[in-house]
């Protein structure tokens, strides 16, 4: 009985191990760079930084901060996922007072990233209006009805005189995904960067209802070109660059009288640090740092980060930081000490399935190193199976349409009484003569093969359906006397010589 329980335990654990095992790439937790960027912005603001954005939406700001976090992680030789996951789970929470709570490792790591970013942008005490992003500009356009513009493709032949190049210097992306009709107000934007060397642009225009151009092009930067210009005429809209021979003002965008430009707005992000940048020292017994950013009713961390981005977009993000457990709000908690823990209880209950899954994985998931060793060993020892498979595949891959095989012999190495080298490679047998008949003969042989196979299959159908041992049908035939055992054949051979064993 013990053996049966042991086998049961063995099967159970191997089964759970197979279920719980996750390949390494599947274990990677999708860490949102945007979320970490928002956290970094919150930490920076609470530590003494002020942001002033102009013409930037939440996506643009989120992209900026996410990009900075990625750059920081690249500078320390890590990916964002590895960097953040290495800190541990549940590094950021929201308390009952809608404060963002960062555990000590997360706070220290984010402060390092912000410190790197401040150094990159020379942000110091007393700094004001340091431009850290000056990339996008949007061009709202209105035009007479009757013509359609699609932002998406580009044809350099269509460029009017005076606009001979389309080398958007340092442009890294363009956002224009939709059809726009003349008469509709639309906008598109370029994101400029001092480091982006490469861009693809699409501009397609439809002239009086017929597509006149649909060409895609990719361009690399050209150092002689500094500005990107948008040119329009009565039927089309062109994106091009001119050499820096004039001021970059809105006049450049409104030379075409048939289009009305309602304005050109630029997007930028500036930073100020009026006072000293403060980085808190966290005592060992403190749970972390509480960022009071004036958030309201943040149900979870995602909602809090969303509010942070909204405030950042509206230039209203401001806050303070205190060591969690020592702030003013902690006194309120002491009056009703259980209140802050209620959301945590719900969070834990919500995370209970994940917790159980994690525990099962931790208990049953096999060791990655051991599995890698097993896989490597089998791959090394039985790699020849792959080579064998390729050879067999080559042999079996013959049909009436394939090239007929040719047998050749190499006579250059032939050795005889008359010496060596009786020629090079000579054709011994060329089966191309059989090709005209192969299809018909194959059909005939196939018919007999299928008949024989199906007959054998029919005879053994019972054993196959039972799924019994592979010798079961043979044993049954032996018992029934339909076939002879090897011992009987041997006796026949011993008594009568070769061939007698097959006589019945």
């Amino acid at each position, binding site marked *: *009985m013990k053996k049966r329980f042991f086998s049961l335990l063995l099967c159970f654990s191997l089964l759970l191990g197979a279920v719980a095992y996750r390949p390494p790439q599947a274990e990677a937790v999708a860490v949102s760079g945007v979320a970490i960027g928002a956290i970094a912005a919150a930490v920076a603001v609470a530590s003494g930084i002020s942001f002033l954005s102009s013409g930037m939406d939440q996506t643009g700001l989120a992209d900026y901060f996410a990009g900075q976090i990625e750059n920081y992680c690249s500078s320390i030789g890590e990916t964002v996922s590895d960097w953040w996951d290495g800190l541990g789970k549940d590094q950021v929470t929201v308390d009952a007072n809608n404060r963002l709570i960062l555990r000590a490792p997360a706070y220290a790591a984010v402060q390092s990233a912000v410190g790197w970013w401040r150094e990159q942008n020379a942000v110091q005490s007393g700094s004001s209006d340091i431009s850290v992003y000056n990339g996008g500009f949007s061009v709202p356009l209105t035009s007479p009805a009757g013509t359609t513009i699609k932002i998406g493709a580009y044809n350099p032949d269509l460029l009017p005189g005076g606009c001979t190049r389309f080398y958007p210097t340092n442009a890294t992306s363009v956002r224009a995904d939709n059809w726009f009709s003349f008469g509709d107000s639309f906008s598109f934007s370029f994101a400029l960067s001092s480091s982006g060397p490469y861009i693809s642009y699409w501009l397609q225009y439809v002239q009086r209802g017929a597509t006149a151009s649909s060409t895609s092009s990719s361009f690399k930067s050209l150092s002689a070109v500094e500005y990107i210009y948008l040119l329009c005429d009565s039927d089309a809209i062109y994106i091009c660059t001119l050499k820096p021979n004039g001021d970059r003002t809105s006049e450049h965008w409104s030379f075409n009288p048939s289009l009305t430009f309602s304005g050109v707005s630029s997007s930028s992000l500036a930073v100020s640090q009026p006072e000293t940048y403060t980085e808190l020292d966290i005592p060992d017994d403190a749970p972390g740092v509480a960022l009071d950013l004036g958030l309201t009713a943040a149900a979870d961390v995602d909602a809090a980060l969303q509010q942070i981005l909204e405030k950042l977009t509206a230039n209203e993000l401001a806050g303070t930081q205190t060591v969690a457990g020592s702030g003013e709000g902690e006194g309120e908690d002491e009056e009703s000490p259980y209140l802050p823990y209620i959301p945590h209880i719900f969070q834990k209950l919500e995370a209970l399935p994940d917790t159980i899954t994690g525990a099962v994985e931790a208990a049953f998931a096999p060791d990655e190193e*051991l599995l890698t060793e097993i896989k490597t060993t089998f791959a090394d020892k039985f790699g020849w199976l792959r080579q064998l498979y390729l*050879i067999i595949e080559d042999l079996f891959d013959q049909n009436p349409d394939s090239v007929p095989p*040719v047998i050749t012999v190499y006579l250059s190495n032939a050795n005889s009484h008359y010496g060596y080298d009786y020629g090079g490679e000579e054709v011994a047998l060329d089966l191309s003569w*059989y090709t005209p008949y192969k299809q018909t003969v*194959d059909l005939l042989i196939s018919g007999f093969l299928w008949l024989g196979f199906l007959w054998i299959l029919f005879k053994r159908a019972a054993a196959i359906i039972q*799924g019994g041992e*592979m010798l079961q049908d043979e044993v049954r035939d032996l018992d029934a006397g339909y076939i002879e055992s090897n011992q009987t054949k041997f006796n026949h051979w011993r008594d009568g010589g070769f061939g007698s064993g097959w006589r019945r």
Partner: protein
Amino acid sequence: MITNFFLNPIWAIVSPILDRIPDISISASNPVAASVLSYIKAGLYFLPMQTVTAIFTIILALWILRVVVAFLHSLWNALPVV
């Protein structure tokens, strides 16, 4: 952890056995193998290989089916559930 408890001793037994298997390499590019394979290929050219492949595939699938069912039978007999 628990799976490792079973896998480690099994692998400790299997691994030394596998280590004794020499590294095998099969190559069809050397002249002798290429010559032999060309003769085999010429012989197989007279057979309807698509049909042969299909029949072999079915036979292989039936073998696998039998092995799986036999394994389940053995497992059922070993488990203390009946």
